[in-house]
């Protein structure tokens, strides 16, 4: 179950809960909670889109992020960009040329590790939509506090005292890094250690995916 590397054994993520197909109108959807952080994601596609945004070689991926209240901000656009890059690497877009795939993310609660929660919810929604993918991806966030301790999947209280926060996304095949998103200052060695820890913790997320898919797979066939 847990990785063979003994040093990295003591990791723990906040409990995850997920409901797939939460929205019946969307082609695929998932609501995911990691601790108190909650996000809901819907995936629609492949669909017909405007001529000017069609691309001959692959599907056009559109990611929309909507915060809970208030006006859209630059931070939201930036999140959209990060999520779009990550999803694009995972979806086999070449199978659906001249179409559009829309991923819509709605923030529900943000209590730390929000980007990771969004990314994991996206992955579950994509799995639920039945789109062909190269690999699945798992996002794990961590915080580095003043003493240089690494805290996986930090809660809001831990975030307040941290000097840097990081979110790493790994793919399922070779567990190689897909996306890294960092904030704050940290040393090189802290970065690599945080990455290794998150890498081993990503196993938990992949196991969780499998558990979710197993729950319904045997019945629908």
């Amino acid at each position, binding site marked *: 179950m847990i990785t063979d590397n003994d040093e990295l054994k003591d990791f723990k993520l906040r409990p995850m809960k997920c409901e*797939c*197909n939460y929205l019946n109108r969307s*082609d*695929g959807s998932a609501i995911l909670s990691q601790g108190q952080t909650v996000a809901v994601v819907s995936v*629609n*596609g*492949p*669909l*017909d889109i405007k001529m000017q945004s069609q691309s001959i070689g692959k599907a056009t991926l559109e990611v929309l992020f909507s915060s809970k209240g208030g006006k859209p901000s630059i931070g939201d656009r930036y999140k959209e960009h990060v999520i779009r890059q990550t999803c694009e690497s*995972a979806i*086999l877009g070449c*199978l*659906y*040329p*001249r*179409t559009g795939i829309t991923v819509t993310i709605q923030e529900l609660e943000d209590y730390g590790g929000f980007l990771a929660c969004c990314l994991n919810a996206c992955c579950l929604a994509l*799995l*639920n*939509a*039945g*789109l*062909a*993918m*190269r*690999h*699945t991806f798992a996002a794990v966030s961590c915080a580095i506090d003043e003493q240089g301790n690494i805290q996986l999947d930090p809660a809001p209280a831990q975030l307040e005292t941290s000097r840097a926060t990081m979110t790493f996304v790994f*793919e*399922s*095949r070779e567990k190689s890094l897909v996306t890294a998103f960092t904030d704050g200052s940290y040393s090189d060695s802290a970065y690599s250690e945080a990455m290794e820890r998150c890498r081993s913790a990503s196993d938990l997320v*992949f196991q969780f*995916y*499998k558990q979710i*898919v*197993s729950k*319904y*797979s*045997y*019945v*629908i*066939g």
Partner: protein
Amino acid sequence: MKVAVGEVVLPGDQCEEISLVGEKSKVILGPGLRKEVDGITITKAGTLKKRSPNTYWVDNYQKRYIPSRGENVIGVVVQKAGDIFRVDVGGSCSASLSYLSFEGATKKNRPKVNIGDVVYAKMLVASKDMEPELVCVDSHGKKGRLGVLEEGFVFKCSLNLVRKILNPECPLLNSLKNEWPFELAAGLNGRIWIKAKTMRETIAVGNAILGCEYLNTDEIKSMCTNIASILAGHVS
């Protein structure tokens, strides 16, 4: 991750079993599987299935239809454009259906198809780069069961539900046929057309089909009996 037949698989998993079989004989890769340089990779989340001798596929949950050649689908005529009808089959773009691809149709003798009609047709051309094309005749020029579906009711459901009820092992249609007569056409694009003698009976068929999606074999049987008793209780 290495996986075997019958297991739940996720995209990115590798199946060595298929590659080994593939070295010796021909293998047919169904939906959800993809041949890459370093072996066979899974692209969809679901259960990996096999049919003898060498056909493999992934049974996954899906609602959006991707056209595929040879499948029977149910579409709605949305537009008449010159010689062709545009038919909405639920895919990313509408499919075309020539008026000549009906039984006995000639340039003079056009088939009677109106906008808003429901047609049961076969996918003749379905490529990711091209617009899908439908026909309402088989290779002998006979219509068989294809063509415009009159009256009845059409509803949408997930693609795996259609596959499930068409599976010979699924007891649903087998149990329902004992209870009351009805007609049914299942489009692999997630649309099912049903028609029974009365409105209530039609609704009951729809109810039974939608209800069986997450039930196992025994539960489906008891559901059918349950629905039949509800139906009988109100009719008599």
